[in-house]
């Protein structure tokens, strides 16, 4: 890592982005089952592979958990139409992934991977998080 002296600053900047995203994310957040119905069939296994090789992990984390450079995408991803629209034509800091470099099928695979990510443990079940 280089180029960032203060993670706190990066987080603060990300927070500004993330608040905007949260606003967009919450209404769009639909139960995984509903999403899966709307989404074209995809391979979660290949999705996991390309999520890493195409660089999604760089900003969203290997488990799409989110972090200092991008918001959480899973579990319970946003609806597929909103998802693919955002990846193709992002309106914020995210770099665009056009159909020239990521196929519709691969997007479906990524979406299947995101939909397969299980729920996280509740914060109050992790003792060191309550201190």
């Amino acid at each position: 890592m280089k180029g960032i002296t203060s993670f706190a600053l990066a987080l603060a900047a990300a927070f500004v982005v993330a608040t905007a995203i949260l606003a967009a994310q919450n209404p769009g957040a639909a139960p995984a089952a509903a999403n899966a119905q709307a989404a074209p069939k995809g391979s979660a296994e290949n999705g996991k592979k390309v999520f890493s090789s195409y660089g999604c992990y760089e900003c969203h984390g290997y488990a799409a958990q989110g972090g200092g450079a991008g918001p959480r995408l899973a579990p319970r991803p946003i609806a597929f139409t909103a998802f693919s629209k955002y990846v193709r034509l992002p309106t914020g800091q995210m770099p665009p992934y056009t159909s020239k470099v990521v196929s519709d099928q691969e997007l479906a695979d990524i979406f299947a991977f995101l939909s397969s990510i299980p729920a996280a443990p509740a914060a109050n079940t992790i003792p060191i998080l309550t201190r």
Partner: protein
Amino acid sequence: MADSKSNQFDRRDFLKGAAAGAAALAATPEPAAAAPTQAQPPAVALPSAQARVAETQPVPLDIQALVEDHPGSDFMVDVLKHLGFEYVAANPGSSFRSLHESIVNYGGNKAPELLTCCHEESSAFMACGYAKVEGKPMAIMAHSTVGLQHASIGVYEAFGAGVPVFIILGNTIDAADRRPGVEWSHSAQDAASMVRDYTKWDDLPISLTHFAESAVRGYKIAMTPPMGPVVLVADSHLQEAGVEEHGPLRMPRLTLARPPAADSGAVAELAKLLVAAENPVLLGGQAIRTPEGMRLLIELAETLQAPVSGGKFPSRHPLRQGGGAIRNADLVVGLDVPDFWGTVNTYLDQHVRRVQSNTRPGVKLVSLTSGDLYLKSNYQNFQRYTEVDMAIAADPEATLPSLLEAVKRLVTPDRQRAFAERGKRIAAASAQALEQARTAATFGWNESPISVPRLTAELWNAIKDHDWANVGGVGGGPLWNIDKHYQTIDGGGVSAEGGDLPTAVGAALAHRKHGRLAVSIQKDGDFMYAPGALWTAAHHRIPFLSVMHNNRCYHQEVMHIQRMANRHQRGITNAGIGNRLDDPNIDFAAMARAMGVHGEGPITNPNDLGPAIRRAVDVVLKGEPALVDVVSQPR
């Protein structure tokens, strides 16, 4: 003693002859001091016959020609002691060899004590870290051209962060006094010019009186907000020649300048704005230097029940807010905010640039910063011009007492009721933000590579019951309960690469005498610039814990290359080329152990992390440095 040596011959000429004719000296007890001068081209006016006879007389090999009991560098040490330096950090260099020896022997290697550094940039960054904690400069010595070239990035960091650093630069200005060969390539006509764009002041004293005055003046300049680095060239002849050449010497008195506080009119106007605003936000920036400063900021925020975003303010105070606080603000007051424009705007890094305002229309912006009092033009670290409604050129901490008084005078019972309502809303939002941060940390909690929130939570769990201080740039945000001004050192700076480790070592050194447990989250790419600072920590028994956030790449650059590949619509799988730090993986624990530091890792299983950190903390509590290498998620 001074008399016994005075003017028996020109010592400098003699030494030149002695250096050039070292072999002859060894062969014969009668040194031919005149021999080298014979080879010189004739001067414009030839000396008289009598003078030539006098000059070419063999100089008796007098012990006094070979020794100097009171070199000028002894006096320089007196000056350093007078200014209260605890430490001088240096990578050794011959241009300050006399000063080095004087520090060690004449000064007893105490106040200042010499710190052995493996790179001049480590010296400079260590001085930054030390000053950020101690609030006063550490001296560093750098070797003329090449040493300062190495040190320069740390000097730039000190300048950008507004940190006082006192740089003593060895150099040999007199061409006739330089040993042939390397001393020529290691000398400069204007040695400090290289860093003049990012230092506050420099000087090249030509006498010891001049040295003392400029040292005191430089110290004062470095310590006057906006603080910054200064350079004092210590000419090698001035160091090595006897003090008696300089006549009576005295130590000039140091009187630090009072930091510039805002004028009463500006304070009254700002107080009025703050009391009248419905949603004021204070940006903490780099305003706070001392516990008293933090107390005043807390009191100001509590009086107004206004949120504070950024800067040194307790992380779990109900009025602490994230960057999003400004979205709703009708007044934003930036206290020494290094990038005010970038805080109130989002700049979209897409092919066609776009700017989004982070504030609502009609918001009033006020800047209160000593940065307006001092700028240089070449390096652009001053950031984009911010259109503010009121600019107060003053030191925020020095202004806080009068601002607080002015605010208190204006608060009416009506406003107080409104403030209390606002305070309740903000407190509720802060409590919710803490819960959100905890929930956010649960995602990826059991992942390998280990998530950054897991890493910070495990570290927090191991330090929370100690008197701890974070000496790194990466912190735990709301997951850590930060309530003392010395617990963080981040903020400002120029994102200088390679600075994290030495900055942490310098800061940890400052914490040592207070018995604080110093910890840092270290970045792998940054560490690799000059890892020798870890050895310095081991050598000088500087206790601190370095937890390696090892994502095995220059990850910021990975994201940049990804952005370019996406924009150019090709090769989106290649962003790691030129950026990855794997194949082979770097074994940081082994590196630490090789330098005499407790090293553990690489830790890949999150369940192994807590115990490894606890073992390392035990080592640090015993007074030694330790490193835990954690294979981590990218961000």
